[in-house]
């Protein structure tokens, strides 16, 4: 009772005033620094003329852009959260930012002479596309919060990986895109500030018009419809508005994480319950939070003389906040409908799957491309090339099988058809550890980097376990823990990458997988790991059969749930980490293979696991061949290639009733 002694309204006021004071204070500090007698500019600018220009055309617009971008993101977050009834939704978690980023990278790579206004249009199209894919993926699960976030994470990863590939293939020309992906608020004129204001003000007015509809949408759809609201139309309109807002921010200052997630939640934490105060308070809090963060970032920059990307710094906070929010999510009602893809009639699969595996392996080993085009190589060529093709094929197939097994484990454990090894965050932490190692010791060899990556994966795994343990390894809590870990590592990686240089190129190459560099030793190790890790999964398949029976049944049948989940999660994380070392962090094979396996008729856990593993190997075998030949001599990242083949099929399967 004592906590309620301070009224929510006064608490709100106190928090806002504190943040406002901090924000203004930091702005004042940066001004004072420019004009100070021993500042960097004092020597060449005794009259203070340039300092005045800097204050007027750099610091002031930067402050205003910080406020406006924060407000726009806060509003976008509030709109998305209420329209999806999902406190975890924001432009980053729905993939909007990543989609917009990818679209702009693609535009810069393919049509650089555009720029200016089309850039915002392109960002909007990319963002909308991403969010539609995310919603399409989670539609069958009725946009359940954790599912939406998991789908958003995967679409975000895919977009980031595509963007990395584009940057890599077009070379240093796009170094600016690193900066931009990190979301820097640095300014040198008022144009972005004016542009943002011109967009934010009408968007805010329009969202106020939607206020009533939004209140109705907090009921469930049927309730809202019964009260006369056109649910689908309203939802789409608000969604488009929110995407437009975040696209405007993305095209002006780049990707800025966390604000859209945190501002509405902070508003609610401060006592805003209904749509109206949330919608009013979120932009205000977003503006203050971003400007305070940027003020602190600038202060650090002044000390370190290195321009840190504010957007990536805010994004660092997103992971922990997501974790905290997920612990407050009410457990979803048990879903009684069949999950995911409807199973097909039982068939004898082994002949087909093994046959496909053999054919793809043979093609990957025997087909090559030379000056005369694609075709079977001569025997002598094959004899020379076999020691090179075989290891990468073995590693790719072993990795595919491991990812497929991990995906199968996760989907079964969480009863979430979108669970995929990528969202565990283990591979992201592996890459981050390696990136730190590359920056610290640039000349470290492959073995050293692999060791660092392995240590990183283990550390990430420990963090994941610690996060998921509080929820007794319950499905969604586990997935959200992984998403949180992944987004933290991603933000840290972005900060490192904005430093650019050869190191960034090397890390970028890692992000897209290292299959090209597999030697017989790595291939052997990967194959042995695959066998050592997939076998226990098969042996423990009875646990999976039971875990598919929901929350209560497995325990009622005598399964020690927490221990079983811990063991299976550990297995999934090990499988993921081992595969990510050669395949790179994204491939979607872990997501696709189990669905295809079910689609072709595998149902009980053991045949599902075995079929998935075989299909994962098959997919990766095909991807290895295709990635090698498509743009010879340039090689596509194999995991990305697999994702691009698989994503449309996956969407089709998940959308099918």
């Amino acid at each position, binding site marked *: 009772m004592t906590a309620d002694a301070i009224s929510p309204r006064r608490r709100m006021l106190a928090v806002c005033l504190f943040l406002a004071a901090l924000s203004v204070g930091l702005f004042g500090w940066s001004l004072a620094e420019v004009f100070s007698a021993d500042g960097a500019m004092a020597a060449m600018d005794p009259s203070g003329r340039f300092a005045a220009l800097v204050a007027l055309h750099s610091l002031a617009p930067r402050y205003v852009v910080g406020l406006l971008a924060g407000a726009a993101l806060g509003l976008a977050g509030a709109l998305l959260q209420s329209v999806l009834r999902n406190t975890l939704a924001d432009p980053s978690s729905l993939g909007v930012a990543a989609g917009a980023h990818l679209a702009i990278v693609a535009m810069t790579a393919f049509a650089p002479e555009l720029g200016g206004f089309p850039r915002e249009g392109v960002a909007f199209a990319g963002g909308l596309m991403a969010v539609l894919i995310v919603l399409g993926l989670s539609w069958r699960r009725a946009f359940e919060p954790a599912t939406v976030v998991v789908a958003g994470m995967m679409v975000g990863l895919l977009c980031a990986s595509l963007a990395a590939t584009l940057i890599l293939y077009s070379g240093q020309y796009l170094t600016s895109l690193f900066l931009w992906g990190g979301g820097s608020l640095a300014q040198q004129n008022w144009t972005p500030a004016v542009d943002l204001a011109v967009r934010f003000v009408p968007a805010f007015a329009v969202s106020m018009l939607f206020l009533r509809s939004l209140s109705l949408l907090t009921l469930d759809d049927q309730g809202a419809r019964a009260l006369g609201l056109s649910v689908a139309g309203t939802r789409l309109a608000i969604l488009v508005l929110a995407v437009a807002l975040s696209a405007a921010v993305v095209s002006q200052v780049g990707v800025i994480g966390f604000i859209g997630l945190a501002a509405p939640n902070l508003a609610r934490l401060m006592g805003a319950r209904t749509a109206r105060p949330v919608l009013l308070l979120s932009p205000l809090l977003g503006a203050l939070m971003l400007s305070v963060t940027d003020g602190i970032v600038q202060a650090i920059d002044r000390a370190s003389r290195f321009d840190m990307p504010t957007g990536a710094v805010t994004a660092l906070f997103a992971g922990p906040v997501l974790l905290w929010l997920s612990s407050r999510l009410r457990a979803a009602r*048990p879903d*009684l*409908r*069949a*999950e995911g893809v*409807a*199973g097909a009639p*039982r068939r004898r699969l082994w002949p087909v799957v093994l046959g496909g595996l053999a054919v793809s392996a043979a093609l990957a080993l025997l087909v090559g491309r030379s000056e005369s085009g694609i075709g079977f190589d001569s025997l002598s060529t094959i004899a020379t090339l076999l020691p090179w093709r075989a290891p990468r094929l073995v590693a790719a197939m072993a990795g595919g099988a491991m990812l497929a097994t991990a995906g199968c484990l996760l989907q079964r454990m969480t009863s979430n058809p979108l669970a995929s090894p990528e969202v565990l965050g283990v591979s992201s932490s592996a890459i981050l550890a390696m990136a730190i190692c590359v920056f610290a010791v640039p000349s470290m060899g492959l073995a050293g980097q692999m060791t660092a990556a392995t240590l990183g994966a283990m550390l990430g795994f420990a963090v994941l376990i610690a996060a998921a343990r509080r929820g007794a390894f319950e499905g969604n809590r586990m997935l959200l823990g992984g998403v949180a870990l992944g987004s933290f590592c991603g933000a840290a990686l972005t900060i490192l990458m904005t430093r650019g240089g050869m190191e960034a190129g090397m890390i970028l190459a890692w992000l897209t997988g290292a299959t090209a560099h597999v030697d017989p030793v790595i291939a052997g190790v990967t194959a042995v790991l695959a066998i050592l890790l997939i076998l226990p999964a098969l*042996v*423990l398949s*009875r*646990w999976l*059969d*039971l875990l*598919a*029976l*929901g*929350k*209560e*049944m497995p*325990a*009622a*049948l*005598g*399964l*020690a749930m927490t221990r079983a989940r811990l063991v299976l999660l550990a297995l999934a994380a090990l499988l993921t980490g081992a595969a990510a070392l050669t395949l790179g962090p994204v491939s979607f094979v872990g997501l696709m293979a189990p669905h295809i396996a*079910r689609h072709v008729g595998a*149902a*009980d856990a053991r045949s599902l696991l075995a079929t998935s593993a075989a299909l994962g190997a098959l997919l990766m075998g095909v991807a290895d061949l295709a990635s090698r030949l498509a743009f010879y001599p340039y090689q596509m990242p194999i995991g990305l290639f697999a994702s691009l083949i698989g994503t449309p099929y996956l969407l089709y399967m998940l959308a099918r009733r």
Partner: protein
Amino acid sequence: MGTVEPARGTGGAAFELKGVTVRIEGRPVVDDVHLTLEGGRVHGLIGPNGSGKSTLIQLLARQIPPHSGEVLFRGRPVASLTARAFAREVAYLPQFSPSADGLLVRELVALGRFPWHGALGRFGPRDRAKVDEAIARAGLLHMAARRVDTLSGGERQRAWLAMLLAQDASCLLLDEPTSALDLAHQMDVLALVRDLSLERAITVVVILHDINLAARHCDSIVALGAGRVVFQGSVAQVMTADVLQRIYAVPMGITHPRDLGQPIGYPL
């Protein structure tokens, strides 16, 4: 309603609750309950919404621990048994049976053998025999090779019951097994439960919404209200206007239809 032999040579009480309290968000849902459930009988658990029926059965099923008090199974704290040992004795069917996701009836029923063979043990002839027997007993022989998610509601419920049978436990805990079924299938499922209890001296605790259904298929009734035991006794003792009024907090009447061997309660 003659007393049946105690379950498999154990003493009288299958379950005992001693001062058990469970709180959800600080509010007691089960409030200092003392209760003894005799072995080998069918106990109907009734009460209005929010009276703590499901929480009580989850306590018995060891799905949740009590905040205070003790739950004993055959005189031993339920927590003292290993998960599998407990599952060999007590089988539980939650209110919402999950989708069996592409499994065949036979495969689903076979999962009931997990407490016996565990994660690594062999699925031997004895397990196979138990599965066959359970399928036959549940009347599912002709659909053993059908997929569970293609069955009707009544058939699906019987498939789950068959799984519980294959589990070969001495005690069944059923949370509203009839809630999604039409009248004919309600009778069908409860008759099966009842027959099993008689044949194998199995203890059954079943939550039922319909007092008349409970009166017809149970040996004794436990009525809950606001987390406490309002009444416990035989069917005959419950089926009086007085007691029913106490349980449901609305005026109730009792009638004795000539073509039915038991009274019918109805709100006035």
